């Protein structure tokens, strides 16, 4: 029996949770918006994040359209759109939910999972509570347990992610996608037909087209946009429908193109170019990209799940039958994904090298969320390999709170100074030559 006092206590707690949650989210959104050099057309992305985190509303969908939550980019959105539903990425970066989840999940669990557990416990976030079904690809132990924890309120489908990416694994993943399609049909009551799947492909494909344009612009014109803004756009994709996101992205691309043709850059200065990689960075946990850019660096590229990686790889249809499209999805989900859940993940290293080459990166910041073992495992190898290329790397370990901000600030500032020193200002070599000449003269 629940007494009135307990009820009151719960209501008080909820109220505190809501006010704290909206405050932090609004604060980070403001910090992002205040950052200089934002391109025109960012408003739709801000609005999407504002709606979810500050106004505490569900995603913007027409009446009757069900939302399906996903916990990883390996769950293909195309299938969800084909079933007439709307996919939402539920991986969380919320500090307030993290504090709640801290008591539920074990101490060593990663903050992302703790935050999800927190939202599940409080049942106050409409994005989570509106979901008709949740898809949890089991990419690590924490995800496996969170899948069990989420069970009960809505349908939860776990997807087995194999440790390797051989032909047999792809085949079994295809049959898993069929199972997923069947369950999606049951939940939404819509049929996934050839036509709906093909339309879903074009819908998501259009968004990917705009993204690839964006990536190309960014590559050709360095200092065109700040990484924090880019990451905000990618994060907003989690709560926007693909066509809406593509439209918003198109407007940004147009403004960026205008910027590029007039030779305009973010600050007009040559900022140290930094690549951000490692554990997922989910709004509102944007402290690290914000710190980097506030300390005078620029996040010139990111290799994180909620960043460009999520939609970067297009599904390539080599067989235009229904089964061929399912296979294209399975192939896209597993093979190009540089997720550390795979046993042999040397392709992540190549992906990083590619990003470094394309974006003229000068330093790499490797974020490890406390307890995120798979990403932590890969740090050593990446540090070694990039060291051979002469690219400095630092590992930042962080949690979902603001206690370590000052410590992070010092480390990031030092790292940026280091890159600036290595950048070799123009004056130095001439002094050195003079000095040499003097020495020679004397001799």
């Amino acid at each position: 029996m629940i007494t009135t006092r307990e009820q009151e206590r719960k209501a008080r707690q909820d109220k505190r949770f809501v006010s704290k949650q909206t405050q932090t989210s609004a604060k980070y959104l403001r910090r992002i918006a205040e950052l200089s050099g934002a391109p025109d057309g960012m408003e739709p992305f801000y609005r999407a994040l504002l709606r979810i985190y500050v106004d505490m509303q569900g995603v913007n969908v027409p009446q009757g359209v069900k939302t399906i939550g996903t916990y990883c980019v390996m769950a293909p959105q195309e299938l969800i759109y084909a079933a007439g539903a709307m996919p939402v990425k539920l991986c969380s970066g919320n500090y307030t939910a993290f504090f709640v989840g801290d008591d539920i999940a074990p101490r060593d669990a990663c903050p992302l999972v703790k935050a999800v557990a927190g939202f599940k416990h409080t049942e106050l976030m409409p994005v989570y509570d509106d979901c008709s079904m949740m898809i949890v690809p089991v990419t690590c132990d924490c995800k496996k347990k969170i899948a069990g924890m989420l069970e009960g309120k809505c349908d939860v489908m776990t997807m087995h992610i194999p440790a390797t990416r051989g032909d047999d694994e792809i085949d079994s993943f295809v049959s898993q996608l069929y199972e997923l399609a069947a369950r999606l049909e049951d939940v939404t009551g819509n049929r996934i037909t050839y036509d709906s799947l093909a339309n879903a492909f074009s819908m998501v494909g259009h968004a990917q087209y705009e993204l690839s344009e964006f990536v190309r612009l960014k590559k050709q014109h360095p200092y065109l946009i700040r990484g924090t803004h880019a990451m905000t756009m990618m994060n907003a994709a989690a709560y926007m429908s693909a066509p809406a996101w593509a439209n918003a992205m198109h407007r940004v691309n147009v403004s960026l193109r205008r910027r590029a043709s007039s030779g305009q850059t973010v600050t007009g200065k040559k900022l140290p170019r930094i690549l951000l990689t490692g554990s997922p960075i989910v709004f509102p946990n944007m402290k690290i990209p914000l710190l980097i850019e506030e300390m005078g660096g620029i996040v010139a590229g990111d290799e994180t799940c909620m960043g460009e990686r999520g939609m970067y790889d297009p599904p390539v249809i080599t067989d235009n039958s229904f089964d061929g499209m399912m296979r294209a999805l399975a192939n896209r989900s597993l093979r190009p994904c540089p997720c550390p859940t795979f046993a042999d993940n040397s392709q992540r290293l190549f992906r990083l090298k590619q990003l470094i080459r394309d974006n003229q990166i000068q330093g790499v910041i490797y974020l490890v969320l406390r307890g995120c073992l798979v990403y932590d495992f890969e740090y050593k190898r990446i540090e070694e390999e990039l060291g051979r290329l002469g690219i400095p790397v630092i590992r930042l370990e962080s949690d979902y709170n603001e206690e370590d901000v000052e410590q992070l600030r010092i480390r990031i500032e030092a790292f940026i100074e280091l890159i600036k020193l290595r950048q070799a200002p123009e004056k130095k070599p001439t002094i050195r030559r003079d000095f040499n000449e003097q020495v020679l003269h004397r001799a």
Partner: protein
Amino acid sequence: MKSRKRIIITLLVCLGLAALAYFAYMFPFYEFETNDYEASREKLFSLEYLKTLVPLFIIIGLSALGIVLIIWLRKLMLKTDKNYSRFSGRQPVRKTKAPKQKPVPFMIIRWAVMIVFAFLMIWGGLLFGLKMSSVSIPILSCPWNTEQMTESSCYYLSHLSELFELPISSILIFFGSTLAFIILLGRAVCGFLCPMGLIQDIMDKIRTKTRTEGISANEKVYNALTPIKWCMVLLFIGLCFIGGNFCNFCPAVATSPILAGMSTSLYVSGFLMIFALIGGFFKRRLFCNICPLGYIVGLFHKFSLFRIKKDCTACTECGACYEACPMGIKTIYTERGKIDVTEANCIMCGECVKCCPEDKALSLTCAGIKLYTSSRKDIMSGYAPKKK
């Protein structure tokens, strides 16, 4: 245990193939009373021409029947599978098409070359008087068509015992021209010139047009085909020495001579042609995977001018090239060091380059000149917003 079983099965298959090839003359598919190798331009436009085409019609009819049967059987088999059966009948209702990239010049040129060359090979001699019979190209275009534009190396390679009875100058011309083609073009002859390849590509086009699902790339399929390929090579070279005739076995006999208006009796080759057509329908260029002549040409892949080059840093290992490759070459996406990824099996069809989503990751070069380079823009061209 499992591998032993597999070895026994492949050995049995190969033995069966060998027996079939040796006694090929005993299994007539369609026999004319007399084989008439006389063809003329007039004959092409007379009713008699239709009579020579009869075996071809039978082949096409039987293949169509086989394809329909296989599709029906597959549906029946999938009925027991809980998940697949639900989706097995999901055929397009409206005219919606799966997103497709816009055609690229390379592919258009390849198709044009294939079609024009096959046409000239078969009818060139009859219609336009084009004949340069001394030059041999290593393709499966049947030399029983005596009016062929040019010689095909397959006859003398499979009848080596006869080759050495020829005058020395002919032998030199034969080897010279064959080697020249092998070194200049390599297996690009398979992808660009071979009429057998064209037939299989047409079957694949029919499949994509009807949106039937094919057999997807799997290493097991290719592993099973490799011993059969070796067996075919042995038969191809060795059959003449033990008194057999590879031509009674070769599926290519069923096209060129018949289309040129020569009444040619078909033996096992007719059955094999049906196999090649049905196989080519479900698995693109299936016969090329076991083609003995292609294998011999492929042995010299290190010297040929056509190469597939890869920028390993740009690759994301998405495996699209492997999925698209009709020859099942896996190293093309797993390779992470070498620039040159040309393989013995590569037929230079350019599918991998077409499907590669990374800018400049894959390119098809000839003597160092880039003919075709992958680009994301091409891949995404199907998704580009329509211009208002």
